[in-house]
Structure formats: structure tokens, C-alpha cells
């Protein structure tokens, strides 16, 4: 609430107070969000996601991002991939950072890196995806809403192990996405594919809010 508004005025004009409150809820800058960061107004966001993956699987999870400075953001993800019985679940968690190298009105370019851990029965997988995220967005509805596109090719340095046996690879992978925002609500679609003989894809719907 605005400090320059007297308590008397607040009581007398609740509509004005409400308008001030809603004024804070400006449409977040999605170009920055899809580079996994927030904006000056809302430096963070959190979302739930739901989708499908290869192997007739269902994907559920959540992710968040928080921008510490003009250029650096921290992000995290966790989720599970459930296959039809009796196949085991895949549980995944990741934490990473993004560094914004180009920021303009409509386009952001970020360098991203993360460390991901995944477990499938007794198979342990550690991945270090290193990539470049390019995000573009435009506003509409008088600036209250935005839509944007994102593309992120990345190299996934991967180490898999079971018992004393290991396998290392560095497949080129990629994500593309569509993001829509209205005030503080954000939503979107994301498709990810790994271009190797372990070719896996997943497609997810995301819904969340900026804060």
C-alpha cells in the first residue's frame, strides 16, 4: 500500500486503494521470464506443469525462478515421469542459473547451465545441460497481456551409472516453448527433445504466477 496515502483517505476511497493494489499487478516481462528470470516488478515466478512423454508416460512437476541481479537468475525444477505399470517412475530434480547476455524490449538471450539428477529404479543419471536460451515476446490488450516464444538448444553432458557400470555421453538437445501471460498469471507449452539414440521427448503445459 502506498505510504503517501493517509489512513483517512484509504477508508474514504476503497476503490482508489484497490486500483493502487491492482496497479502493482502489471503484466510481467515474459521475455525475461522465459530466460528463467523475473522482471523489476516481479523478479520471480513459480509454476506447475503437466504433460506427456515418450513411452506412454505422464509428466508432472513444478519449477521456479528468481532473479538475483540484472543479469543473473537462479532456477529449479522437480518432477516425476510415471509410466504404465509395472515400469518404474523417473524422479528428476534440477537446479541451475541463467546469465542474460542480451536484453532488449522484445528479445532476451541468456546462457543457461544446470545440474540435474534423475533416478530410474537403480539407474542413476546426472546431467549438466549447458545452453543458450533465446526468448521473444510482444504485449497486447493494452499491455496487460503478453505472449512469447522461446528456443533453447543445449548440450547435455550426461553420466549414467548402475552398479559399477557407467556410460557417458553429450547429446545435443533442445527445447521450444510458447508462453502466455495475463497480469501475474503465466501459462505456456514446452516441448523438449534429446537428439541421440536415447531420443526422448516430452511435451508439457505450464501454469503459474509471477511474484
Amino acid at each position: 500500500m502506498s505510504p503517501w496515502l493517509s489512513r483517512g483517505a484509504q477508508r474514504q476511497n476503497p476503490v482508489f486503494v484497490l486500483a493502487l493494489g491492482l496497479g502493482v499487478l502489471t503484466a510481467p516481462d515474459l521475455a525475461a521470464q522465459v530466460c528463467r528470470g523475473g522482471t523489476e516488478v516481479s523478479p520471480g515466478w513459480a509454476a506447475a506443469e503437466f504433460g506427456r512423454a515418450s513411452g506412454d508416460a505422464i509428466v508432472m512437476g513444478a519449477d521456479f525462478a528468481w532473479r538475483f541481479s540484472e543479469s543473473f537468475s537462479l532456477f529449479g525444477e522437480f518432477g516425476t515421469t510415471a509410466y504404465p505399470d509395472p515400469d518404474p517412475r523417473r524422479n528428476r530434480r534440477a537446479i541451475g542459473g541463467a546469465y542474460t547476455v542480451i536484453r532488449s524490449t522484445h528479445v532476451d538471450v541468456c546462457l543457461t547451465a544446470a545440474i540435474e539428477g534423475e533416478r530410474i529404479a537403480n539407474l542413476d543419471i546426472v546431467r549438466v545441460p549447458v545452453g543458450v536460451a533465446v526468448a521473444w515476446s510482444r504485449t497486447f490488450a493494452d499491455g496487460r497481456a503478453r505472449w512469447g516464444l522461446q528456443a533453447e538448444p543445449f548440450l547435455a553432458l550426461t553420466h549414467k551409472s548402475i552398479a559399477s557400470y557407467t556410460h557417458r555421453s553429450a547429446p545435443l538437445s533442445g527445447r521450444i516453448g510458447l508462453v502466455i501471460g495475463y497480469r501475474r498469471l503465466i501459462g505456456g507449452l514446452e516441448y523438449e527433445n534429446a537428439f541421440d539414440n536415447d531420443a526422448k521427448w516430452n511435451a508439457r503445459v505450464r501454469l503459474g504466477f509471477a511474484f
Partner: protein
Amino acid sequence: MKRYLALLLALAGCSDASPFAPEAFTRIPCRPPANLMAMITGPAFAPLEMHSALLHAANRMSLALGTDADAGPLKNATNGIAAHIGASENDAACRMLSISADLLEGLPDAPATLPDRDGIRLIFALTAHSLTAALDP
């Protein structure tokens, strides 16, 4: 810039550098090697019924393979299949089976070890058939 590109290509070139079958390390639930599954038709044993045969393959039959560099890992991996089957961890057993089958194929084709290699391969095939039935009911 060219230096970074060369580094990226070098890293990408490391893909599948392992001597082991990548199938054992995929990110989706395991399916046994197709060449083993093709060897057996008809009703399948329950995975637990393969436990004793796998222990026999890992110990008595592996001894006959001598001191080849791959014989030790094959013995360990086959013991791993038996251990995972004993714990009803069929996905992990299937991954160990892929690794074991690849190690078996990598052994020298010496006539002296052929009977034992064929015997182990038959046990692997029966295990693959059994795991396929358990994983794909």
C-alpha cells in the same frame, strides 16, 4: 568462437564412447535385448525362477571362461542380474542383463569356452524372455 565450437563438437563426439550397450543406460524403462528375446518362444518362467540358474552362470560357468579381461566384469554383472531379480527389481535386472549380454558378446570366440558361453547365453535368453513377460504383462 571457433575454439568454443571445436570444444562443443569434441564433447558431442564423446557420445556413446562406452564399450557397454547404451540400451542399459537409456532414460526410459528397460526392455531386454531383442536378439536374446528372439531365441525363446512359448511360456516364460517367472523372474525369480531364473535366480539359481543365473547364480550358476555367474559362478561355475564363468570360471570356465578363464582370466579374460571381460570375464570378471561378466561374472559381476551376472551376479548383479541375480541380485536384482532376487529383490524383484526387474527394471534394474533388465539393465544388468543388457550389460552382461554385451560383455558376453565381447569375449574371444575360443572353441574351448564355446559350450559355457552358449550355456550362459541360453540362461540370458531365458531371463530376457522371463523379464519381458514380467515387464510387459
